[in-house]
């Protein structure tokens, strides 16, 4: 495994001190306000995040007409829900694709880390890992198997490489035995990984 995350403490401490010094200087020089960075971070706690995607997917599961509209014109269908900021930064042009019995979708950005911020928030590290970016487009089933998602050779795999304006996300399949759940309960089952196509949504415990 690439030891991307076990840097020695010196290296982390040096980066931490450097970024703090940079922010302090930029505040002093009037490039940033002392509340600017926090404003960004708070946006990703309250406005943009996977909680939006999860609610959109849950709605699509509960309302097949909504799902059809979501696939046909993603921004318009998202706008129906009146979440704030849904065509904001890195979500100006989003498109949803749906998993089904015959198709599994996987979203990737081989050149960098394009990700639909408004509905999913910020990309997790695995998505940015050069190894995922390299292997995902050549051996998606092998990668998915490692992630605990077996996809048969018969099922079609569609890979969406984000290379221009569109930011893609996946409507995963609704799990079995979820008929008794409401929208919020369904949304609670849905992870960012499921909406990128590297995880399935597990069946909930029996009611």
């Amino acid at each position, binding site marked *: 495994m690439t030891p991307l995350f076990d840097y020695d403490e010196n290296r982390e401490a040096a980066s931490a001190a450097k970024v*703090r010094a940079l922010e302090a200087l930029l505040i002093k020089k009037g490039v940033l306000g002392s509340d600017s960075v926090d404003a960004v971070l708070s946006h990703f706690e309250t406005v943009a995040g996977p909680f939006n995607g999860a609610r959109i997917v849950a709605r699509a599961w509960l309302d097949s007409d909504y799902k059809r509209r979501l696939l046909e014109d993603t921004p318009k269908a998202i706008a129906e829900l009146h979440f704030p900021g849904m065509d904001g930064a890195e979500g100006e042009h989003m498109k949803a694709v749906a998993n089904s019995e015959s198709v599994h979708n996987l979203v990737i950005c081989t050149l960098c880390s394009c990700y639909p911020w408004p509905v999913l928030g910020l990309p997790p590290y695995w998505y940015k890992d050069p190894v995922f970016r390299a292997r995902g487009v050549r051996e998606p089933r092998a990668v998915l198997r490692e992630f605990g998602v077996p996809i048969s050779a018969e099922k079609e795999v*569609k890979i969406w490489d984000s290379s221009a304006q569109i930011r893609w996300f996946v409507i995963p399949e609704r799990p079995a035995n979820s008929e008794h759940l409401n929208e919020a309960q369904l949304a609670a089952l849905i992870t960012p990984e499921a909406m990128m196509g590297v995880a399935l949504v597990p069946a909930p415990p029996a009611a």
Partner: protein
Amino acid sequence: MKLQHYIGGLENLGPVNFEKKVFVAKWEKRIFGIHTVMMAESTHLAHALPKYPIAQVPTTFKETWTWASLRTGAEGMQPFEYFKYRYYEKWLMGISQFFVDRGYVAAEELAKLTEHYRANPDAPLPERPNPILKEQVVKYLNRGDSGLRAPVAPVRFAVGDTVYVADPEAADHTRLPGFLRNKKGTVTEVYPGAFEYFVSTGPDGLAGPQHVYCVSFDASDIWGADKCEPHTVIYADLFDVYLKPAH
């Protein structure tokens, strides 16, 4: 070719690190935030689709800063160096160098203050809120910076057309994944309108508003049937300049 552009498809890399955290160290949040504020106060936003009143925002930052700036930096790195650093380490290197190069910060003062915070990790930041800038940051995050423009050239391809991918000279930055170069695909969607990328990529070809096509590729046409998995289709959104007609 440039290795960073050819990551897709590299073989024999071993397992993926399935780390689900967005930030693996607390300091990473801060550089992400600094970058995003820079995007939100970039001078080019005065001409962006929502015409942001950037000139009225009280900031000394008078630069164009977009995703392309960061990516040009990372793709411009010596390729072997690229793999030595974690994602946000590259951001920290690129952004701090940018501020030094453009004269906002002196290398010495940055080094000196870094030492100070190294010795005193809990020393506070200066307290100088900037509510108008904060408002612009929030506005930018909520309204974005779309590249949608009026088309200036006719659409060249229709859904179902066979196309070949161009192989332009390697530049410091491209939106063309290396593994698609010279490959054959099929147009599956012609996006309405045209899209302008943040910057010109020079000999690579992005400049001005262009049509964008979604193009599908059979994985076996890219890697060869014995070097990939069956029933696998790769879709990529490609700017007009990256495509050539089939004949």
